[in-house]
């Protein structure tokens, strides 16, 4: 157990250089963006002098190195700067918007896992059957349809034509009040508050964007599950299990699936980070008040602090997800962790 803890600690420390790298790169990249924030914020009527004034107020008249150390120093104090676009601190903006994005992404991912993993397993146990063909069809569709298209398509059918879905405008219909803040996840918060009506309304809003993301995430997970299961079912240890007369379900779950779960888990980590990227467009389509739409607006306005904050929080999220996947892998697979 102590070696396991040491491993986790070492793994955390290994993430440090990448975080530092991300801070530096996000800073440099935002500076390399075309567009001058001083001009943007000074307004259309500003003359040269007032632009210089704004530049000075934003601290952009200093050298890059100086700016970086100020930024890093503030970061160490937990201050991510002010978003000049919204006029609120970046940290505050991210904290309110991140749960919205996470709620959407995790629901989409969860849905995808619930569908893709059984689908992949069934396809692998019956290669060439109708379910295998269905799996292949879904995978092809999921890969070839861009998320903004599926999003608009779903809105067109379920909102415009059928009228089943509520208007795609944010996390909650304007008739409802957001539930009291506990986790920031509306579905969980409304349940905690015992407000079933708000909970149902939250879910109604969540369905279409989550399904959009789910369709996107489905393809790689189903494909990986199918492939890994096929490999595991053809392996020597499954042959041994069969030769010893173990039941089909025991072979399928204890022997084949647990082994197949290892590559699937690794894929999940990758899919999650893809989803974070796909999120940006889906949030725009569904007017979802997440960090994706926040980032786009900040980018358009060359809002340095906001963009840096967004990139940094995404990177931290990415590092955290990979860490969690690694830890789960160590728990399932006894061979992991010996290599380093």
């Amino acid at each position, binding site marked *: 157990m102590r070696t396991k803890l040491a491993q986790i600690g*070492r793994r955390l420390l290994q993430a440090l250089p990448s975080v530092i790298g991300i801070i530096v790169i996000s800073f440099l990249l935002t500076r390399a963006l075309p567009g001058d924030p001083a001009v943007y914020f000074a307004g259309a009527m500003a003359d040269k002098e007032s632009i210089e004034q704004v530049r000075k107020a934003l601290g952009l008249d200093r050298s890059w190195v100086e700016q970086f150390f100020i930024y890093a120093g503030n970061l160490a104090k937990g201050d991510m700067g002010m978003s000049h676009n919204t006029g609120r601190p970046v940290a505050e903006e991210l904290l309110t918007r991140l749960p919205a994005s996470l709620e959407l992404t995790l629901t989409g991912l969860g849905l995808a896992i619930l569908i893709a993993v059984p689908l992949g397993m069934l396809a692998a146990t019956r290669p060439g059957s109708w379910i295998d063909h269905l799996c292949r069809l879904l995978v092809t569709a999921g890969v070839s349809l861009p998320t903004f298209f599926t999003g608009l398509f779903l809105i067109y059918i379920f909102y415009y034509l059928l009228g089943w879905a509520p208007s795609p405008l944010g996390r909650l219909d304007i008739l409802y009040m957001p539930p009291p803040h506990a986790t920031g996840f509306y579905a969980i918060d409304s349940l905690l508050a015992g407000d079933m009506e708000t909970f149902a309304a939250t879910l109604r809003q969540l369905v279409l964007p989550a399904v959009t993301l789910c369709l996107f995430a489905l393809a790689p997970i189903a494909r990986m599950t199918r492939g890994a299961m096929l490999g595991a079912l053809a392996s020597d*240890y499954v042959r*041994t299990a069969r030769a*010893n*007369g173990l*039941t089909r379900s*025991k072979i399928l779950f204890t022997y084949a699936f647990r082994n197949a779960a290892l590559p699937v888990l690794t894929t999940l980590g990758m899919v999650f980070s893809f989803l974070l990227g796909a999120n940006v467009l889906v949030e725009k389509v569904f007017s979802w008040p997440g960090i994706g739409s926040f980032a786009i607006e900040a980018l358009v306005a060359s809002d340095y602090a906001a963009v840096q904050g967004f990139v940094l929080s995404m990177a931290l999220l990415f590092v955290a997800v990979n860490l969690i996947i690694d830890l789960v892998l160590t728990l399932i697979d006894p061979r992991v962790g010996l290599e380093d």
Partner: protein
Amino acid sequence: MDAQPILRIDNLSVRFRTRNGTVDALKGVSFSVAKGEVLGVVGESGSGKSVTAFTVTGLLDQAGEACAGTINFDGMELTKANEAELRELRGREFSMIFQNPRAALNPIRPVGKQIEDVLIQHAQATRQDAKAKAISMLEKVKIVEPYLRYWSYPFELSGGMCQRVMIAIALACEPRLLIADEPTTGLDVTTQKATMDLIRDLTREQHLSVVLITHDLGMAAAYCDRIVVMQKGEVVETAAVRDLFTAPKHPYTKKLIAASPGPSSKLDDLTAVLDDNTSHQPSMTRTINSGADTGHLLEVVDLVKEFPRRDVEMTGWAWPVKKREAQVFRAVDGISFVLKRGESLGLVGESGCGKSTTSSILTRLMDPTSGDVIFDGANVTSYSAQQFARLPQRMKIQMVFQDPSDSLNPRFTAQDSIAEPLKRLLKMKGSKQIDIKVEELAEKVGLEKALLSRFPHQLSGGQKARVGIARAIAADPLLLILDEPTSALDVSVQAVVLQLLDRLRCELGMSYIFVSHDLNVVRLLCERVIVMNRGRIVEDGLADEVLSNPKDDYTRQLVSAIPHFEPGKL
């Protein structure tokens, strides 16, 4: 022995559906196994021996089907049984063990749990006493500290221990028939002996019938009562062990027996009954110009190679708290020997003895920790492995690798593979010139010209081995290092390749270092042999002498572990 056999196979035919139509894998196979009998099924790859076993247990993959014949297990007709009935029988009435035991065990489940699974499945144990029974099974297969090993994963155990666990799983429910499919292929000879002895003892104790599938005639002779010889899906001969070896009837049996190297066979005898051998030339005696050229080609002085131990905590920069003394593992521990020009030297030992590390250092694919290798008058260890790759000496040391399939580029034709050293090492230009040279080399190794345009997957094992040899001799090396060049080949192919190697050495005046675990094979090709154990040389002498009169304990153990048939002893 009861009159009623426990297993009777009658006229069994199995067909495989493939993309190019159906293939008959078994054509009317018949044999029976009596109660308490150990029946050997021998044959080379593709003879259908494993297909027979899988058909009996109902584990044949979906492309294959039994299209004719019956399999009778103790009065029960297995070809008509459905999957659920078969599942009940498997593990309880008959069970199987396979080759490559480490892959045959679930890699992420403790081995004890895997034994439990079988016990619980067949209601031989309840959840409460399963653990105790699993541990007692581990004890039965002579695993030390069974209660600790219960929690071990296959990757933590040696190959031999994994096979013991497999045996424990197979015998846990006290079946009446055990089918062992090449149970010791890939294991060291001493481990092989221990494993086979264990199987023999346990099956005798339980009065079990055994079907032992093997390509090794020596092993079949040592452990079986009766032997079935199979070739291309047919049984060609069935006889008691003594009769089979003293008076083989079928020409294929004769060929197999002749091709299996024993402690007294000669290289020429191996193919004495081979009728289709075209490349073999009559009796090439070992007349090396030893008198004219007595110089040492290779001198190895106090060679050491150390590897960092794996289980030591890595001291990366991110974890500077603990800094242990770096422990090392000496793979090669101060060995010295000399090789004369034109001499052939065998390097023998079990896995982990350092023979492969030594050969990698000699070919300068690896840097030694200390020591010298003096090749053709120059100290080649004074260059780093990378520098050496550009030196002219590089082409004078060539290597033939263990796996003829994996050591050829799958995207290269035989022609390309052989031409590669001509282009890279000899810097030959002009495709005409290269083509001529490649054909010349192919002729030398007995590879038909028509085969040169084929890719590795279109060639047989023996043909691939020939490509590997042709590639190695392309640059006219002085020293050829052969790393188990025949271990993946069938015995009859091995015989031909060994003869080819011997002929080439005489013709081209090369020196060989022949790395192998098989003393009998080494003796056929080498005058002198070095036996290695744990990185050290334990014995060094003339091959015949070392084999017939080993002085070191370890060598004696090694020699006695080789299963073989001697007509006198049967």
